[in-house]
């Protein structure tokens, strides 16, 4: 009896404590979202979510930190999050990019969620409001169902989300638009008011949603866009001060859609192109820098002859075809390599340093990269390298021995997981290099030849025979 009472007391205490924490739960409830609009684009396997939030400060103090909430599954598949502050009215709007950082809230919210904080450029005074535009990009977020399809079937996928935007703030009014790639939608969950017109499903408007309110939905629809995923891309950029940059890219490509099941019939694939293998893909397009030269495309067992290169003064396009069409679950590995003129990418900075200015990204268009590694091989003899990348990456140093290297070259390795095309941007690697090192290798070669001829001359003139 006594024990039972004690247990009840403990429980009550625990509940009380919990309640206490919940009531204290930050974020400080000084923001209210007066209007939220969400547009979800499901047309490819990279999902873009545009969120427009009108944030109002209802608190008493000025505040500059707006918190966004995402479910843990969403965070696992989140490739990037970006926030813009919109200023001005109507036509004269300007947008300012804001800093977004993952944060932990000090106390447990009622549901499992992860948070990002947007740091506003200027603190928002009490009673003022501002418009924020947030872009989420998700990858590997569409679940193929059925998980295995035959050659003639098209690919159906599930999209899971909530009809109400997950937010730690009170939302006065919100609407969600989901855009599907075609009108073929198998099923979707209605949360009234819900409306479907053509390729668009509209959820809402919903009025006055309390914080952390959710309402799970799913959309089951046809998506035959190529689910091309680069599982790993290793890009090696080798700088030679003799005027060339050699880029070598190792790809591991996989079709991440519904797995191919059963027969692959070439007759059907060749004669009935449209109804067969709709979700498979054959061609890939790589956009390379202008003035690219000596391009090659090969794999472990040799050259792949199916590629075309189109160049003009602004850009080069390399159309490549893997050895076989890729169906769900099929893999292909290959290497693309090319040379670039040095002067287009290597510059001298004011403090007597040199820097490489190159694109951080995957040249293949519309490609998701699970793990992107960029290795910048600096010329032999260069010192104190420092990379400058616009977003957080892991970086470390390695050494590499190329032709005629004695002390080895410094390699700056940059690694980024979950890379989407929106990440494409320039990065710089600064280093110091003494041009005298350029002469080391030619001198070595010249002296080796000189030694050889000296040895020949010596051999001819020296009589080594024992007999006289």
């Amino acid at each position: 009896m006594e024990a039972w009472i004690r247990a009840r007391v403990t429980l009550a205490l625990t509940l009380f404590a919990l309640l206490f924490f919940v009531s204290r739960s930050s974020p400080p409830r000084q923001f209210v979202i007066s209007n939220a609009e969400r547009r979800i684009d499901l047309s490819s396997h990279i999902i873009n979510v545009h969120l427009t939030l009108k944030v109002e400060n209802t608190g008493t103090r000025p505040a500059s930190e707006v918190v966004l909430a995402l479910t843990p599954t969403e965070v696992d598949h989140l490739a990037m999050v970006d926030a813009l502050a919109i200023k001005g009215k109507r036509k004269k709007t300007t947008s300012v990019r804001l800093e977004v950082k993952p944060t932990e809230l000090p106390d447990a919210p009622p549901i499992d969620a992860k948070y990002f904080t947007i740091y506003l450029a200027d603190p928002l005074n009490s009673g003022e409001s501002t418009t924020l535009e947030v872009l989420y990009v998700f990858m590997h977020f569409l679940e193929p169902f059925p998980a295995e399809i035959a050659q003639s079937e098209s690919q159906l996928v599930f999209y899971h989300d909530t009809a109400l935007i997950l937010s730690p703030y009170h939302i006065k009014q919100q609407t969600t638009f989901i855009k599907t790639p075609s009108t073929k939608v198998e099923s979707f969950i209605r949360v009234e008011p819900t409306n479907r017109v053509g390729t668009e499903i509209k959820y809402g408007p919903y009025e006055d949603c309390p914080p952390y309110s959710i309402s799970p939905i799913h959309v089951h629809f046809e998506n035959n866009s190529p689910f091309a995923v680069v599982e790993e891309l290793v890009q090696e950029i080798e700088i030679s001060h003799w005027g060339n940059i050699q880029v070598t890219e190792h790809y591991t490509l996989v079709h991440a859609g519904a797995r191919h099941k059963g027969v692959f019939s070439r007759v059907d694939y060749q004669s009935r192109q449209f109804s067969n293998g709709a979700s498979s893909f054959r061609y890939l397009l790589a956009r390379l820098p202008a003035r690219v030269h000596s391009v090659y495309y090969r794999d472990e067992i040799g050259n792949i002859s199916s590629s075309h290169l189109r160049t003009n003064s602004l850009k080069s396009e390399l159309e490549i075809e893997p050895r076989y069409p890729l169906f769900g679950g099929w893999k292909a590995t290959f290497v693309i390599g090319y040379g670039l003129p040095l002067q287009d990418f290597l510059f001298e900075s004011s403090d007597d340093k040199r820097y490489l200015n190159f694109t951080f990204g995957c040249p293949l268009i519309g490609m998701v990269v699970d793990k992107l590694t960029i290795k910048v091989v600096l010329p032999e003899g260069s010192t104190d390298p420092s990379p400058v990348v616009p977003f957080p990456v892991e970086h470390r140093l390695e050494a590499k021995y190329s032709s005629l290297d004695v002390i080895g070259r410094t390699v700056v390795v940059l690694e980024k997981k979950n890379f989407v095309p929106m990440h494409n941007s320039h990065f710089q690697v600064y280093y110091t290099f003494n041009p005298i090192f350029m002469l080391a290798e030619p001198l070595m070669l010249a002296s080796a030849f000189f030694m050889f001829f000296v040895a020949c001359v010596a051999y001819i003139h020296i009589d080594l025979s024992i007999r006289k």
Partner: protein
Amino acid sequence: MATMPASASDLLKSFKLKTKQQELLIRVSILCLVYILAFITRLFSVLRYESMIHEFDPYFNYRTTLYLTENGFYDFWNWFDYESWYPLGRIVGGTLYPGLMVTAVLIYRILRFLRFAVHIREVCVLTAPFFASNTTLVAYFFGKEIWDSGAGLVAAILIAVCPGYISRSVAGSYDNEGVAIFALLFTFYVFVKAVNTGSLAWSLASAFGYFYMVSAWGGYVFIINLIPLYVLVLLITGRYSMRLYVAYNCMYILGMLLAMQIRFVGFQHVQSGEHMAAMGVFFLMQVFYFLDWVKHMLSDTKLFQAFLRITVTSAVAVGGVALGLGMVSGYISPWTGRFYSLLDPTYAKDHIPIIASVSEHQPTAWSSFMFDFHILLFLFPAGLYFCFKRLSDATIFIVMYGLTSMYFAGVMVRLILVATPAVCLISAIAVSATVKNLTVLLRSKNKVVQTGSTKGSGGSKSSSKALLDQSQPFQKNGAIALLFGAFYLLSRYATHCTWVTSEAYSSPSIVLAARGAHGNRVIFDDYREAYFWLRQNTPQDAKVMSWWDYGYQITAMGNRTVIVDNNTWNNTHIATVGRAMSSYEDEAIEIIRSLDVDYVLVVFGGVTGYSSDDINKFLWMVRIGGGVFPVIKEPDYLVNGEYRVDKGAAPKMLNCLMYKLCYYRFGEMMTEYGKPPGYDRARGVEIGNKDVKLEHLEEAFTTSNWIVRIYRVKPPNNRW
């Protein structure tokens, strides 16, 4: 001021070379040029296609080389390969000639050490041309040894471009022969040098050359039979000398000991029938030496005659008894099938279909002699004439080498390769001797003319006329005409060689090229497409069944386990595959399941008109299968002795597994305009069975031009 021109002329004079130095300079530069020429003439395929390994066997060599670079020598030496000959496996380290791989890895290591960042593939691709270049040097020294340096130079030039050799040494044909011909010629050269000098150092070198040859190629048997034969001939012709004794004994004993270190040879070198001749000659040499000594000691000729009779009879008797006992007890193994088929060209056809099925084991046609030797074929007899005219130990050797290898070249197409160095050397003697004679003729007259002109401008005409009268009429003109003729022939030879190299011997055979309708080059890369598909999209432990031709390529490029491959060491296993391919599907599936096969791969040329596909090879599968399993009978697949695939084909043919796998759903396919669907372009007929149904297999992959088709073996149906 005045001294300047003088010192300048002095300087010029000091730069001016003496005739001998000039000659040396010219010789060295010609050799350098030949060295480079031999290398670059073999690069057609690299320039036209890419730096890749060709054909079938080189893929195995490449794979083992990769293994050697990655795992080191001891792992390589003890390598048991689970990926081929499933479920038997293959003791790779003990069943290959490691010379080629070790050489390539050595070159690779040296380049790496010198800080050249090369890939092992590039080294493998260029190994054969590199050794071909080295062969030209050896040919020069060999020619110099048997005739003179002029003949050596000509021999180097001839062998640098000779198609018979190029056929096996273009860039990418990473095969044993590539280094073996170098080793063969080197061994012969050093041995001849040893016989000529009687030097232990040279015979030691020849023992090492022989060791290298043994480590590189099974063709070493030719050396170990030719050299004893040569020694025997020298003994018979009374040319026995101490030099010969030293050279042969040292070479044989050391060579034998060294050769036994190669695991694949091992004790065969003293036990197998092919090596017995060398041993016999070795003992004969000792008897000869002993007799010589006894003769030296005994002054009485009569006594010696009696002694000679007794020793020779007893030696022969002892040898015969030893050989007989060895044969009976099985200590000395009999000759192998391959050896038999060399001595009797019809042997393989009747007894070992697997040897007869290989196209390079066929008897040589006249056209291929012409194709591979061109003018050398005519120069060869002329060279023999010159050799006989100036007989020496060295020329006897080259004559014997030439005649025996020519015989073997006639028996088997691929042995043209062995004959090529001999033919080049002997032809070089012919060319060099002829040209030398002609130029001597021309120059001697010029000299007289010159001396005549010094006497006076008037007398020159009469003196030359007088000289002309002494010799035959129009001798000078004739000589000039003959010289021009010789140069014309030689230039034709050079053009022919380049043409043959470019047209016939430089296609990788793994990539097929054809001309499209607009004259553009169309590439069929289907083999690699299929192999790469296997590599990427099948389970790691998948077992692939195909005809043995593609075994090496599947393991090397597809990285999957195969049932049989080009090693062909187990005839029964190959026959089992042949039997599966030529049975009905429900019988075949039993065999396929018993071999634990997951995928079946066939090569089919019906869409592209590629003629060396599995349907055309099918009769060999039937023959080889039937050789072990008599249920498979060749006549079942023929109609009136004719092999056909159209409506008139034999019913068994139309329903066997190979037919079904090749023509599955081919009946729906339009291959050529104006022809019915299912028109086979490789054989030019409409196929007989268009409604092919597969019960136990399903199509897993077909390449874009249908050249390779891969089928998956379905799991057995549930009983319930």
